[in-house]
């Protein structure tokens, strides 16, 4: 037995779900400009008119919901150190399979050895609803098929929606997902599983993704490869703005700093990035990674060499955001093509 959700019921479902959850979904803020953000009163008042579940890409993924760009770790004052904790129940509706891969990667990293309590408390109890892509949101930059992360997820989601005409076939990936379906019986209808049709849609979706790179070959080459010339060339072009890091679903680096005066204040952490010159600068002024090329190398080697060996999975999920965000046209797919020596376009 399968489960079906009618497309025209989605908005009502989200409004109902907002009784129990903080609902996050893609909203088209301006034509073509999609933000994955919290659904608010204005959205509800407008009947979720701006909900965008088509194939438009969101600028940033859902990373920041669990690992905000800036967050307070604790406040301090005369009463001592006071921890700040955020743990609202979050329903993420309509994330892409690449976004899911990024979140699962970050789960693995932040939970490794000890759980990062801040991300843990934001993430625990959240519900991830993936909507697979029927056509590539970033046709010239995303390459999930090559990276093995999409266009549909094979697991790790709570629910996954597969578009079948006017309906979504709902794949249930966890007990929490099953519970959510059971909690909203008006919207989820049992139906004979159209498994052949689902398979056909998924296959067809994969075929629409035109940008292909030889990801496996790239990982293999990076194990021992020495691409200093490529890093030097990219290092000359890169303007070190960090846009690629901020939109990257798997970038996890952060800086920590205090703000306050007169014994009262707070400690915060902010996203940081390995391409910034100050990232490794010590108080003495000594900086082991001053060369532009070594900072560029750091980014690619971390994702494609050290992450696979430490985490068993690549630090690139193929979302293509880095290339889209880059003012000078540098991105992961281009880097992979350069080192694998082929255009591999099909």
């Amino acid at each position, binding site marked *: 037995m399968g489960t079906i959700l009618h497309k025209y019921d989605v908005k009502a479902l989200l409004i109902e779900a907002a009784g129990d959850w903080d609902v996050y979904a893609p909203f088209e803020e301006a034509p073509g400009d999609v933000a994955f953000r919290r659904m608010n009163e204005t959205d509800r008042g407008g009947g979720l008119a701006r909900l965008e579940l088509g194939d438009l890409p969101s600028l940033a993924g859902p990373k920041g919901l669990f690992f905000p760009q800036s967050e307070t770790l604790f406040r301090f004052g005369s009463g001592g*150190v006071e921890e700040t904790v955020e743990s609202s129940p979050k329903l993420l509706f309509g994330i892409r399979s690449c976004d899911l891969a990024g979140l699962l990667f970050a789960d693995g990293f932040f939970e490794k050895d000890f759980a990062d309590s801040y991300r843990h408390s934001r993430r625990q109890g959240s519900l991830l609803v993936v909507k697979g892509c029927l056509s590539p949101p970033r046709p010239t930059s995303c390459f999930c098929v090559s990276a093995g992360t999409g266009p549909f997820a094979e697991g790790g989601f709570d629910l996954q929606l597969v578009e079948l005409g006017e309906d979504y076939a709902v794949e249930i990936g966890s007990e929490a997902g099953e519970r959510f379906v059971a909690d909203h019986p008006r919207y989820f209808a049992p139906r004979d599983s159209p498994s052949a049709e689902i398979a056909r849609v998924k296959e067809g979706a994969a075929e629409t993704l035109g940008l292909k790179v030889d990801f496996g070959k790239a990982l293999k080459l990076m194990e021992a490869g020495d691409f200093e010339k490529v890093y030097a060339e990219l290092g000359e072009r890169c303007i070190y703005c960090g846009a690629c890091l901020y939109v990257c679903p798997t970038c996890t680096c952060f800086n920590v700093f205090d703000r306050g005066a007169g014994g009262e204040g707070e400690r915060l952490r902010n996203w940081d990035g390995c391409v910034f010159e100050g990232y490794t600068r010590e108080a003495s002024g000594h900086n082991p990674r001053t060369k532009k090329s*070594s900072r560029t190398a750091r980014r690619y080697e971390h994702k494609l060499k050290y992450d696979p060996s430490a985490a068993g999975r690549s630090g690139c999920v193929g979302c293509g955001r880095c290339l889209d965000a880059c003012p000078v046209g540098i991105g992961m797919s281009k880097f992979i093509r350069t080192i694998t020596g082929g255009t591999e376009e099909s």
Partner: protein
Amino acid sequence: MTTDAVRNEYLPLPALIRDIRRETFDVKTFSLEPVGVGEPFAYRQGQFAELSVLGLGEVPISITSSPSRKGHLEFTIRAAGRVTRAMHELAIGDTMHIRGPYGNAFPFESLKGKNLYFVAGGIGLAPLRSLINMVLDAKGEFGNVRILYGAKSPDELCFKGELEEWKAIPGVEVLATVDRADQGWKGRVGLVTTLWDEVGLSPANAVAILCGPPIMIKFAAAGLAERGFGDGEIIMTLERYMKCGVGKCGHCNIGGRFVCTDGPVFDYGQVKAMPAKEGVF
């Protein structure tokens, strides 16, 4: 994802400053006592802690006291940046904040029976001092101990009183040298590596433990290797800008390793395997 509450590793504890000793014009040693924890702050030789001045920030500082001397928790700190300069303004009875200890430790058991060469540059003696005092507190179980200590100038030598105490222990040699002498300096002038012939440096049944500026480590380690020390017999503790101390913030990454959690103690083989472009030396 579990729904258990997890321990917050980023929350520091208050620590009372029990004592402050001036080492040099810009280096002081602080004796701290964490409050409100009930049990002593347990640590191992070579580990570090994150110390805070709330409102200014947090810095990783190696623990210079020895675990063999229970109840002592000391940090030797150079006024180098905003936070450490503020620490130097603090007085006995003031409070810092602390979390840790973090990182791995120097070997101890495996050093027993060996001749040990400690090679330090400047404030690099601070982390080595933890192991030195631990060894000296069990001196009978070790071979000869030579402490080779270099600094830029005589007024940058730390732990001057203790150097004299160590010197007086049978089987311990302490040789200090400076890059530039001043008028009062009657001792040696030159890099630490120039001391090797004077102590009859020999790799036989020996281990060398290093800490100092990257350039010193680079030449000292290469020189020791040249004299026959194996990769596993040259042990060093590395420094790197770090924020969290617990393997999350990413700043101290060298290749696939974290200095904070995989180190700070590495042997020469591990360090040589690190990518040269990461500027380990």
